[in-house]
């Protein structure tokens, strides 16, 4: 299908793609660069910048839809892992999430409550909201116990299709739930109680 981007924020119309290029109102590209999990500078990204901007545009739409939803107005949607730049000697597994993060196709989000902590229940609600109301290739509700402090974590991985200049794209709309990288359910979002 032909996706119709907002002409004001259509990256195809931008004269020059920079870190400050707005992809939606209040959503510049830099929002996907300063993520805690993958802090990177725009000039270090090797991906074609136009392609990167078009891919991230879909994520900006996702963010915009979320912030417009009053159900989440007491929560902050944060980009936990944005554009990924591999280490010098790192070999990124092809088509892995990190591979897709390199081109802006995949972004990892976290939802924080007013107390500055991840709201697990609301994260599930958000995943369900995205599943029902948004477009994506794959949605992964991801839980883990990586933090040595003992605090579990929850994030939502959203993978988008590669966006050509024509914006002719289709969405696979697959969903998964993972725990410590291990698949817990396919085609189903499961709220894990930690």
């Amino acid at each position: 299908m032909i996706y119709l981007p907002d002409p004001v924020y259509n990256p195809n119309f931008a004269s020059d793609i920079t870190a400050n290029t707005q992809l939606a109102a209040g959503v510049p590209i830099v929002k996907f660069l300063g993520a805690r999990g993958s802090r990177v500078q725009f000039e270090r990204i090797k991906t074609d910048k136009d392609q990167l901007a078009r891919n991230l545009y879909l994520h900006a739409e996702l963010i915009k839809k979320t912030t417009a939803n009053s159900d989440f107005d007491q929560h902050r949607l944060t980009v936990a892992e944005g554009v990924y730049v591999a280490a010098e000697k790192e070999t990124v597994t092809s088509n892995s999430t990190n591979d897709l993060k390199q081109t802006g196709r995949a972004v990892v989000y976290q939802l924080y409550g007013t107390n500055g902590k991840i709201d697990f229940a609301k994260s599930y609600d958000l995943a369900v909201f995205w599943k029902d109301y948004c477009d994506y290739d794959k949605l992964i509700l991801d839980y883990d116990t990586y933090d040595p402090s003992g605090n579990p974590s929850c994030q939502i991985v959203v993978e988008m299709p590669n966006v050509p200049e024509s914006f002719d794209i289709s969405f696979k709309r697959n969903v998964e739930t993972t725990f410590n990288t291990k698949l817990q359910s396919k085609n189903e979002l499961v709220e894990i109680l930690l």
Partner: protein
Amino acid sequence: MTTKEDNIVTRIQKLGEGQEDTLGVPQTGFSDASGQYPTQDYYFGTSTNKAAKGETTTQLFSGGGDKNVSIELPDQKPSQYPFNQVQQTPAGHSWEIDDTPGGERIIMKHRTGAGLELRADGSVLFSAVNKKVEVTGGDHTVIVEGEGNLVYKGNLNVRVTGDYNLTVDGNINVDVAGNKEEAVHGSYTGTFDNNHNSTIKGSQSSRVVGTHTQTLLSDNYVFVKGDQNNWVEGDVELTSGNRLVTTAESEWAASSETTNITGITVSVLGTKGTIGGTLVDHYGKVYSGPPEGAGNGGTTFYGTLVGRAAEAITADFANKAGQTPFAKYAEGAGKAKTHSNGSGSAPSVKEPEKYETIFPFIETPPDAPEPTTELIAPHLAVSNFAIRKVIVDTDIEDPNSLVSKILKTDDYKDLFDRDPTIDEIRSKIRDTANFNNKEFTNNLVAEGLLSTDFAKAFDGKIGRTSNRSKQKKFGYKPLGNNPADVKSKRFLV
């Protein structure tokens, strides 16, 4: 009741006054003539504002906190009727002055959620859903008795046209993921009351147009694992107040068109080599060497020797020669191969002309010990002048261990060059190849950066589930005009 949609003048003009008068009259009595009220939330109930009765609590948009940044305010006690005075417009703006005991607050809310809230405990919440602009014509003073957190998800530009004075009574911690650039158009002065340590994992370079002066009031150590090159176009002066020792394990070379080595006591020792040149004068007290003779490894002089020699292959003048193949004048010769009168025995000859010696022969044995291999070897190995062994990275097995320790590339298998945060680790091990890299994850666990439970299988409880297909649900906003339909309508998006 007038509403924002009322335009009675237009309707009267369009419909006529009579029709307009009858249209606005509801058939059921005390209903809203405009049809806007009651709103969906107030069906089948009293029209008293729910916020006034404490059934709902008006909240501003907060957008949530951020990681480790809490904006949580104390819970607001629900309002009690009739303490809360509520004004709410059809668009959704509201203005509440609440005198509920223990829950006193004032809130001014825009329909978008933006607004100002003064809470019961004295907290003030200011929320801007979109831009926030502050303009101060005069001075601006902020005094905060507690902590502060600033999180900007985009760029932050600060411009100070005057001086920028920053006083920190504690520490300053700066963590820059990218580059840091400073341009100081005037002078830069830094004073460190204690130590100044820096670790540079890449290269360091500095360019100084003027003079570079470094004053060290204690010791100075420079350890170089690779080469050190000093290229100076002008003079170089290396001066020591005490000893100056230069050693090299392989070769030490000093060359110049004019080379001077001067000392009260000078020693140039070696087991082999060359000293001198075509036009070099040698001054000294004693020249000594092995006596084996020319061609046998002994000391040999070529050229003209003025003085006395115990043995000489050829001597123009010799007062005494034990054996000479050719002697022009000999006072006494036990045996001569040839002589002027041709007889087989030494003839009696005329008293030869006595040649005066130019230098009197005084036997002067050398003061210093002979520089033999036995003397020089320990001299180079264990004396004060011994060649220093240079090892910068002392780990013999891994000559780059120090580099690895600094870069941490070995610890983290080239995936990190510093201690990562848990967020960075999570991002990295999202790639299963990294997750399954045992050495990598074990090191992270050993460093205490990754939980020992990182690979734990799920054994807990699950809550809600939702399958892939879109779910039927109540809408977030009502559709349609029939109140009863709206209340019960289910729809798919």
